[in-house]
């Protein structure tokens, strides 16, 4: 079974520029999450989708961050304009609501450096 795919793996931009990250979840997983992980800290949930609807975006800085999951499959997270403090790893995860532990499967992340 293929895991969660993310691209790019690394991105370096200057402040005030825009950047977008892409995530393809595990096939059949209805729930998709975006996390931000700053160096030395645990991941922080930015947004959670159930199919193509937003379940929780309470910690998403909506003045500069946006995310979409138009067809209920893959998703993009955008930052516009980027700030120095946005330097972090952006993790995408997915889970199935079909029973079991409902565990989240994480992708490898995109490491963003804002100069």
């Amino acid at each position, binding site marked *: 079974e293929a895991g*969660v795919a993310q691209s790019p793996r690394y991105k370096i931009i200057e402040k005030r520029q825009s950047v977008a990250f892409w995530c393809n979840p595990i096939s059949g997983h209805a*729930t998709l999450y975006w*996390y931000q992980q700053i160096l*030395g*800290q*645990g*991941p*922080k*949930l930015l947004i*959670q989708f*159930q199919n193509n609807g937003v*379940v*929780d975006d309470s910690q998403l800085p909506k003045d500069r961050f946006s995310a979409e999951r138009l067809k209920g499959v893959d998703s993009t997270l955008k930052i516009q304009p980027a700030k120095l403090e946005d330097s972090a790893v952006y*993790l995408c*995860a997915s*889970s199935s609501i079909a029973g079991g*532990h*409902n*565990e*989240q*499967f*994480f*992708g*490898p*992340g995109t490491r963003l450096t804002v100069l």
Partner: protein
Amino acid sequence: LAKTTQPISMDSYEGQEVNITCSHNNIATNDYITWYQQFPSQGPRFIIQGYKTKVTNEVASLFIPADRKSSTLSLPRVSLSDTAVYYCLVKRRAAGNKLTFGGGTRVLVKP
């Protein structure tokens, strides 16, 4: 919000058993306790989950006392490859299985 408290770091040696205790005093009736492992440059990976008493799988054991206000992750006979950050989380069933990560415990396994 079910906050968890766990040690910042622990050192161990190959072949030893590592026990990480986590406190979650305000856990709710429908919440589960779940543990994730994260290696450098990778996303977290699910290890084990439990509700009460003891759960064991091929990787670890999870001990949960009757009051459920704490839990202990046990890693038997660790190897160098078990060096990682281990996160204790309370899965909020009432909030769509939302996970709130804390700082985790950095486990260093020495030869």
